[in-house]
């Protein structure tokens, strides 16, 4: 029986590649967007503007406080009632961007806050403007602190793309899911799915570990 299922699994490998491609596409686009948004929010969150800081804080709390599945459902099924009608793919990207940017925002804010106050003061007393201080002095140094957890967060985000399968995006997990319905050999199907995720995530984990060691010096 195993052998029979295995040959059927081999037969449909293009389908798995399609899923892998979809997963990579979602991951790549959403990582880029949420990095950009996350940095902007992170700078705001570490600033002194109490009102903006609070607003970002509420946003972050909402995203961190609710499961990603629920967020996706809300974006996909409920936002249309308020006039935002999105297909599964853009909805998945939006959900990923919203979730990822909230987490990256916290990492960036943490990195900026970790820079010794003296660096701000030294830059201030040379007469640099706020933006110059950030761009020339603070962010380049904060990158050291930001980079390792950022790459770690990328891994988490890539893995979270599996959840967008619930709104019908044919990515890797959903491919596994519809396959297991045809080939009732879960161990085999999901080992394969797991191995494909591993092949994307593990290099990034290694990179994150490497950065952590390197930046620690």
């Amino acid at each position, binding site marked *: *029986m195993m052998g029979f299922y295995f040959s*059927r699994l081999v*037969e*449909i490998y*293009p*389908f798995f590649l*399609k899923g892998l491609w979809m997963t990579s596409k979602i991951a790549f686009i959403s990582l880029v967007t949420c990095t950009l948004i996350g940095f902007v929010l992170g700078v705001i969150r570490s600033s002194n503007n109490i009102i903006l800081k609070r607003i970002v804080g509420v946003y972050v709390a909402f995203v961190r406080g609710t499961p990603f599945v629920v967020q996706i*459902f809300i974006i*996909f*099924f*409920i936002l*249309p*009632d308020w006039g935002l*009608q999105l*297909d*599964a793919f853009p909805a998945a990207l939006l959900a990923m961007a919203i979730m990822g940017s909230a987490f990256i925002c916290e990492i960036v804010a943490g990195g900026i806050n970790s820079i010794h106050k003296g660096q701000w003061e030294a830059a201030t007393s040379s007469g640099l403007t706020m933006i110059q201080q950030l761009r020339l002095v603070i962010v380049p140094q904060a990158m050291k602190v930001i980079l390792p957890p950022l790459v770690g967060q990328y891994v988490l985000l890539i893995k979270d793309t599996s959840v967008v399968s*619930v*709104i*019908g995006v*044919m990515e890797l997990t*959903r*491919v596994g*899911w*519809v*396959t297991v*319905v*045809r080939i*009732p050999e879960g161990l085999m199907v999901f080992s394969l799915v797991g191995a494909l995720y591993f092949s994307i995530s593990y290099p990034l984990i290694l990179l994150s570990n490497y950065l952590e060691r390197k930046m620690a010096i």
Partner: protein
Amino acid sequence: SSTLSEIVKRGELRVAVQSGAAPYAFIDKHGEHTGSMVDFTRGMADAMGVKIKILDFDWDGLIPALLSGKADILAADMTPTLKRALKISFADPWMSVQTCVFTKTGAGYQSLEDVNKPDITVGVLLGSTGETIAKQYLPNAKIKSYKGGGRMIIQALLAGHVDAGVNDDLAVLTALPDFPPNSIRLLDKRLGGKAPLSFAVLHESVNLWQWINLYFETIRSNGAYDKNIAYWMEGIEWKKDH
């Protein structure tokens, strides 16, 4: 403007299905949507002269998808009930099935009484007609609901998660060949009457609703309907092709 003219203007008919429910709608080995209902809706799109877009959902995503305007037609093995009809409109039934009880061959359950016991767990599909019927006919048994199509119950049964399953007989019968031979047995007695299956649309889409009815009338008379049913429901020929 009416839903129908919107579809034509858009050039695309959007259909919500639940993959994993062979032979109604599932994904073949090339990763393409296929199945009896997929064929019907393809025919509808052809008749309208538009492209088709299949949207794939879990069972509990189907109705939200329709309500939130993601899809024009809900094409699932869904029975029109009065409660459901409060929110969406069902077209005339295109098919009817009966609810059956199935168990493992070796389990030795014979009658409904055998499975209507407190120590028996019965698997049903979340929100399906089977769920309602199981609650009604097997009040003593524990009901456990599953998502993701009729095969999930069979797998749960074989894995020992449940002692019996309740689902429509057609879905069970067509799924059986994918599982080890003679591992599953249907109890003789069917539950309830014939349960119709219908396509659904939003209340507002009256014109689309009429159009679907007309469509089925048409294909029934020109033989396309019978061909579809013969291929998908009455044989297992399709398994070779998909």
